[in-house]
């Protein structure tokens, strides 16, 4: 089987099963990091970060052709976290891969530091763009890809959206455009954790049909288990799902995934973990936060 490494070149990897297992471990460590960051930074949105950890890990390790050395390369693949409030997961992955120093993680949501409570490109220039207000990422991604294709760049663009975010009309304006322009270098992942800020996504705006919606807009679309590393990697291998069309992967996830008492609880959209919550979560995850590895907490 072929796999792209971080330098963006192709290599053969013998054991796909091993990669799936190791990235599963990686995801647990990223989750532990997110919980620690939320505790230290006294900032919520933990449930939204935990649900999409697996997707971000999979993207950076197996799909995005970008590395710290190629972060400025015009032909790099691009990633936009459109659901910007889930940024602890993105920050942790960036630090793990060496895009940013790990010690930044201990200063999440601290004034004038690189890792703000919502991603800001002025604070952390290697981000493709600043996000935080919902419904902007897909439109920006579509423009990027249109431009990249016009330049004949091989670069692709991945966007991670929330399911609540798909209430925004601008998402569907962009979805129409992407299909009309045949932007098949575009990958949209929707973190369908079925909970939005104050209620069940399906009850608020009837989202049980996200896959059908994207398909009817002219996309290739599939629903997969978004917290199962193996399934995500398999789906990424099949990109683009349909030649000549943008691809949407609807990730069925659990909000707060990986920490039993946070799972599927709307409370954990905003709640900040207590010291006790933190200890319990790390115990359950059986992993240490990245930036505290080998040090006394």
């Amino acid at each position, binding site marked *: 089987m072929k796999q792209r490494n971080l330098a963006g070149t192709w290599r053969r990897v013998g054991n796909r099963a091993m990669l799936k297992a190791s990235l599963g471990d990686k995801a647990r460590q990223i989750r532990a990091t997110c919980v620690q960051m939320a505790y230290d930074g006294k900032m919520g949105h933990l449930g939204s970060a935990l649900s999409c950890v697996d997707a971000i890990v999979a993207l950076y390790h197996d799909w995005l052709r970008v590395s710290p050395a190629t972060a400025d390369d*015009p032909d790099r693949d691009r990633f936009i976290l459109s659901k910007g409030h889930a940024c602890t997961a993105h920050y942790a992955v960036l630090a793990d891969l060496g895009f940013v120093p790990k010690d930044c993680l201990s200063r999440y949501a601290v004034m004038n530091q690189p890792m703000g409570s919502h991603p800001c*490109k002025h604070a952390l220039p290697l981000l*493709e*763009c*600043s996000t*935080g*207000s919902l*419904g*902007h990422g*897909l*439109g*920006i*991604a*579509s*423009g*990027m*890809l*249109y*431009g*990249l294709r*016009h*330049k004949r760049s091989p670069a692709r663009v991945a966007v991670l959206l929330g399911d609540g975010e798909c209430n925004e*009309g*601008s998402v569907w*304006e*962009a979805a*129409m*455009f992407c299909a*009309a*322009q045949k932007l098949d270098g575009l990958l949209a992942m929707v973190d369908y954790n079925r909970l939005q800020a104050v209620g069940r996504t399906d009850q608020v705006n009837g989202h049980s049909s996200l896959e059908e919606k994207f398909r009817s807009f002219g996309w290739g679309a599939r629903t997969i288990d978004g917290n199962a590393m193996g399934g995500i990697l398999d789906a990424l291998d099949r990109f683009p799902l349909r030649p000549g069309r943008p691809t949407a992967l609807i990730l069925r996830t659990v909000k707060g995934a990986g920490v039993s008492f946070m799972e599927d609880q709307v409370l954990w959209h905003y709640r900040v973990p207590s010291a006790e919550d933190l200890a319990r979560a790390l115990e359950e995850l059986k992993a240490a936060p990245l930036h505290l590895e080998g040090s006394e907490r």
Partner: protein
Amino acid sequence: MKLAFVETLIRLARANRRIMLLTGDLGFQIFDRFQALYGPRYVNVGVAEAQLVGAAAGLAMTGYRPVTYSIASFATARCFEQIKLSIAYHGLPVVLVGGGGGYAYGECGVTHHSGEDLSLLSGLPGMTVVAPGDAHEVERLLPQVLELPGPAYFRIGRGQEPRYHSRAPVLLGKARLIQEGGEIAVLSTGEIAGELVRALRLLKERRLTPLAYQFHTVKPLDVETLRKVSARVRVILVLEEHLAHGGLGSQVAAWLAQRGSRSVVRMLCIPDEFVLGSPEKHQLRERYGLDAAALAKTIEAEWRASPSARRRG
């Protein structure tokens, strides 16, 4: 002005291959030549203003110089958050063109009026706000805004605005002298400058020659000219096809007040109301005393009431 905009853009796009033109499904036929010449550098995103601005942001992030076009009211208010966050927050060099700015589409009703565009866009940090007065100013200013490192709003008219004469060069950020004079000053922005020029002609017959400037650049405000004007005259009239709040008039008044000026600013604009009844542009101007004849009367009254005129008796 619209044709001048398209023709100028076609000329600029020939030399600068990074220019892309995006429209929100408006500008019937006027972009045909651009499209024929430049193919995929013309994009109709459909009736989707948020997408218009979002796509422009993405293009600018990959090194292009996008120019977006829609009717001013839709190009600004409809997608304001996209302009604020995707464009201005990122400081991207996108030129947002609003066609038929102000009340040029008066007869189409309130939905097509944009009496708050200058205010909205001036409220964004780093945004340059330009409202040319005629086709000549469009031709001269468009290349300049396309050289800016950051975003710009470019309000143009609907078509067939009269050209007016001024020997002063058209420089972005610099007010343009329309008429040398004194006693009082009249400042204008946007295509209503044509109305002012006609009013000045009427006044000249009565030997009244106020100082007159066209502030085609609303932001950044040309405070150097403002300083000179306020040193010379006491009363400054500001004429614009815009609501009173946040346009050129209020920006001029705020600047003068902040530096303790004794100048009196009178705003000649649309009062704080929705303009109902769908009047055509000229009817609307008559309704609010913004047509040349009414302007001449207002300016004359201010002239006669000015301190030095009174001293002369």
